[in-house]
């Protein structure tokens, strides 16, 4: 009997597990290979490990933990860029806490701070702007990270800074977008994912239509999902039902937060401030065309790359790391030789070991170093 007491509604959990078992059994009658479902978002990855959903799955259902955690895909070179700006005299470098422990070739932002750089953790880009207001003689730089969940916030912060005429504030922009990366993954040979559990909070901003191509061109189902374990079970069941029926559609399980057309004000702010970068590097995945955002020329005064004459660095991922194979579902975290040996949450080698939304950190936290029996 499965342990379902910790679910909000144990009865519902039990019936969802049963429904998944039945769908999996029906699929197994006509298909010899397992079904792999990728949860795109790191928040989902965390929930899946926290509630041990993987270990409760039928044998022919597997999760692949996708690239939807912005901290987990921060390339080494970009951390070095951040550190080089943080070290400039007079700079206050601000960042979300999650990024402080990500290793670059020159160490982490925490180490840069210990060595004397003024690096500060902030909760919001608005806090960085407030620091700029309060310290007019200093240059305040914000490390703008994240998908469309946070990109509107930093865009609106730039618009506020411009409206107030704040001239000592700029952003190192590392915003990324998930759709071009999903397209790139789907186009790769050997990408063995049969369906997707789509990101909830990114979709709250962009809506569900940007995923239509996954169903139409690549014939894979997508179900946009909430973060509760029950949401994930229900979404997985919806994906399996489509696979069983030979269908590929975009469905929205998280309608209570995600409007099909997204958030118009948020998208308008992004469009005013950002344009697509020709290409953007992802840790583990390499450069992906059209997957990053940069400030439009009109906002150049707020672009830290221009202000500090940054020449972006490119640093290859450590040879021993297999983050890319984990991110694309080719291996599980424990299959990486570094897992739990040269890569631990205290001494991360790859960024998937840093954030609680990274598959390796979540696996380490909830399953430990040893192999599950």
């Amino acid at each position, binding site marked *: 009997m499965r342990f379902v007491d*910790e679910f909000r509604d144990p009865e519902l959990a039990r019936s969802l597990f049963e429904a998944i078992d039945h769908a999996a059994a029906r699929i197994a009658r006509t298909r010899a290979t397992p079904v792999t479902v990728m949860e795109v978002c790191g928040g989902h990855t965390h929930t899946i490990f926290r509630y041990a959903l993987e270990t409760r799955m039928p044998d022919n259902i597997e999760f692949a933990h996708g690239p939807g955690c912005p901290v987990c895909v921060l390339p080494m070179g970009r951390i070095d860029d951040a550190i080089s700006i943080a070290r400039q005299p007079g700079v206050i470098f601000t960042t979300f806490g999650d990024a402080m422990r990500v290793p670059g070739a020159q160490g982490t932002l925490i180490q840069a701070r210990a060595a004397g750089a003024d690096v500060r953790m902030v909760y919001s880009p608005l806090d960085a702007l407030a620091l700029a207001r309060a310290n007019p003689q200093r240059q305040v730089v914000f490390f703008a990270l994240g998908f469309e969940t946070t990109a509107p916030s930093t865009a609106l912060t730039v618009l506020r800074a411009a409206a107030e005429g704040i001239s000592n504030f700029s952003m190192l922009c590392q915003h990324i977008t998930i759709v071009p990366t999903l397209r790139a993954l789907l186009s790769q040979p050997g990408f063995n994912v049969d369906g997707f559990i789509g990101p909830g909070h990114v979709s709250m901003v962009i809506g569900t239509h940007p995923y239509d191509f996954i169903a139409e061109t690549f014939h894979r189902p997508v179900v946009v999902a909430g973060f509760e374990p029950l949401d994930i079970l229900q979404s997985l069941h919806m994906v399996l039902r489509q696979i069983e029926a030979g269908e590929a559609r975009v469905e929205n399980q998280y309608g209570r937060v995600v409007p099909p057309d997204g958030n118009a004000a948020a998208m308008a702010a992004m469009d005013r401030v950002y344009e697509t970068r020709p290409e953007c590097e992802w840790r583990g995945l390499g450069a992906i065309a059209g997957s990053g955002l940069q400030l439009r020329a009109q906002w150049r005064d707020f672009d830290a790359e221009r202000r500090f004459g940054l020449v972006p660095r490119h640093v290859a991922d450590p040879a021993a790391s297999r983050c890319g194979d984990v991110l694309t579902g080719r291996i599980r975290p424990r299959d990486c030789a570094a897992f739990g040996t040269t890569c631990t949450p205290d001494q991360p080698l790859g960024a998937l070991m840093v954030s609680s939304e990274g598959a390796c950190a979540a696996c380490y936290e909830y399953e430990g170093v040893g192999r599950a029996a």
Partner: protein
Amino acid sequence: MCLGIPGRITAILDEAGMTAEVDISGVRRVVDVVCVAHADEPLSDLVGRWVLVHVGFAMSRIDEAEAHETLRLLGQIGELDGELAAMRGIEAA
């Protein structure tokens, strides 16, 4: 930074600047409400509403039941304390 945290709007602070005070699990914080405002509705109608707050910006209106469920989940997965500490400007060790 990716998971939103539910809060309840308690007051509009600046009509033109579109900022409000939001109560997030007892922590009061200034939040930008541009993304949850509707053009055909006075900003004051937002007072008392629950919203999902991402890095200081209200990004979505949610109902009260959803708000409580989300807070419970964030508590269970251990994300709530860190978010609240960050919001207060306290650095986690």
